[in-house]
């Protein structure tokens, strides 16, 4: 038995979030439906002259991982739906129904409860997105699986990408959930916010907003990026970090469970 209350809370929260098995399946299905393969476009990148067969395998693996990474952009909206559900279930639903009040009437700190809830939302969304991205990477060129496993930097880049995207989405949904305190407002509001961000990034060409900023992150991770790409990819992360800190401070110091 673990003696750490944070870990106890975390395992409890994960158990709570995994009570619905379907969102994980939904994300993979939605992303698969939305995602359009671009392998043919990027096959020109592969240089077949004067290289060994192992290097060719490496280049193909790189391109297939690059394709998998682009699935993160397609997965934005399905993940926004999932993030809104997780954030609402973990925070607003429990605040509204008095579950959080009963939870906090046990010997556990507000900090431990917040961190465990936040981290459980992040972990569930991250694992779901990582599995989706890896699925696309391995699906296109299954023969590359061995190369991808033995050259872990590509897989790790993919997971880092998934972590950054999840961080942005979970920070937005959790902060909306805590500040609204109402499940319905949180569910609709957090998804609407993420959807509006997508519309703005597409229609107004604001490339520092998600999901357009994820393109910059993909380029930074898989190709040499420019300074503007660094700016575009980091601004959403900085804003997400600000939201995470603000929601932590509000939850631990200002939130009243009347």
């Amino acid at each position, binding site marked *: *038995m673990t*003696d750490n*209350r944070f870990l*106890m809370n975390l395992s*409890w929260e994960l*158990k*709570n979030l995994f*009570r619905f098995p379907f969102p994980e399946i939904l994300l993979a299905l939605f992303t698969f439906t939305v995602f359009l393969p671009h392998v043919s476009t990027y096959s020109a990148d592969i240089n077949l002259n004067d290289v060994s067969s192992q290097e060719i395998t490496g280049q193909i693996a790189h391109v297939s991982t690059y394709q998998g990474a682009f699935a993160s952009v397609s997965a934005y909206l399905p993940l926004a739906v999932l993030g809104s559900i997780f954030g609402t279930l973990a925070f607003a639903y429990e605040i509204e*129904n*008095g*579950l959080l*009040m*009963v939870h*906090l*009437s*046990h*010997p*556990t*700190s*507000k900090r431990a409860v917040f961190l465990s809830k936040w981290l459980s939302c992040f972990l569930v969304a991250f694992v779901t997105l990582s599995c989706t991205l890896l699925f696309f990477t391995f699906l296109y060129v299954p023969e590359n699986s061995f190369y991808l496993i033995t050259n872990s930097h590509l897989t790790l880049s993919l997971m880092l990408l998934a972590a950054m995207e999840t961080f942005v989405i979970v920070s937005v949904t959790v902060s909306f959930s805590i500040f609204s305190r109402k499940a319905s407002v949180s569910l609709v509001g957090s998804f609407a916010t993420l959807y509006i961000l997508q519309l703005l990034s597409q229609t107004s060409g604001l490339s520092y907003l998600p999901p357009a900023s994820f393109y910059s992150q993909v380029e930074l991770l898989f190709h040499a990026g420019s300074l503007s790409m660094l700016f575009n990819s980091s601004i959403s992360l900085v804003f997400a970090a600000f939201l995470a800190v603000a929601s932590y401070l509000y939850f631990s110091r*200002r939130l*009243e*469970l*009347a």
Partner: protein
Amino acid sequence: MVTLSLISVDGLTKHYGRVKALEKASFTVGTGVTGLIGPNGAGKSTLIKIALGLVRPTYGEARVFGLDSRKERSKIMERVGVLHEKPRFPYWVTGREYLEYSAKLKRISDVTGEIKGISEICGLTDFVDRKIGAFSAGMVQRLGLADALIGKPELVILDEPTANLDPLGRHDVLDKIKRLRDEDGMNFLISTHILSELEKVCDNVVILNEGTVLTYGSFDDLLSKHSRRKIMMKVDDPNKFIECLNRRTREKAVVEGDSIVVEVDNATHFIKELNALFRSKAFTLKELRSCSATLEDIFIEALRRKQFD
């Protein structure tokens, strides 16, 4: 003998916008069972939530075991068990899973044994393995009680502990509280509307009304301080007797069944007048006895005094 202060509240004020839930409430309660009583909206639940650090006071402070409820919440919760009014539990887990989680948070070593024991005490044994979603309101209440009592904390705060329970269940719960106080030395803060039940177990009383503390202290002290003495009599013609009594004294007399109940302020004077009445031989006294005051009498008297003030 030094009396240990379990909960002390000093100038506690809580405003929700324009609503004044608590207004400069101050009191101290010692060990034993303390009853927190007052009408709806008196501020009882707000006071409990402030003591648990779930709500921030507008002004003032609350201390539990001498610890600040805002700054030292975690230390307080190590020693406190709580049952909230209309408690909610995750419906997707079983009663046992929930109690296991609660026991682990309270760092109980023998979780299985503790759950078995507390399930027996709270009458949960037959349905502890069911999903909470399938529980009736009474079962949820029992689960909440088990959650509060698990690990036998030093102080148990119960907000309406007998709500949703049948008469037998209510009696059972009060009996358990009495036993846990006497045998295990546990302390309780009980907020309830059912005063007749509370007076069977409480040692101390805090009376709240409209956010202010009307009075507080030990039950015995308040009995002698606040409640008027009641005298019950049976005479051959009650209505005529009350007419005569009203001419002689200012005491309020009412007919209850075949008896007359008189609330007495000055007992010596009243007995003197009573003697004079019976000496006139206009009435025949069948029965005369002094009734002990109840918690309800203390509560009504405290409210009445507040209105006169």
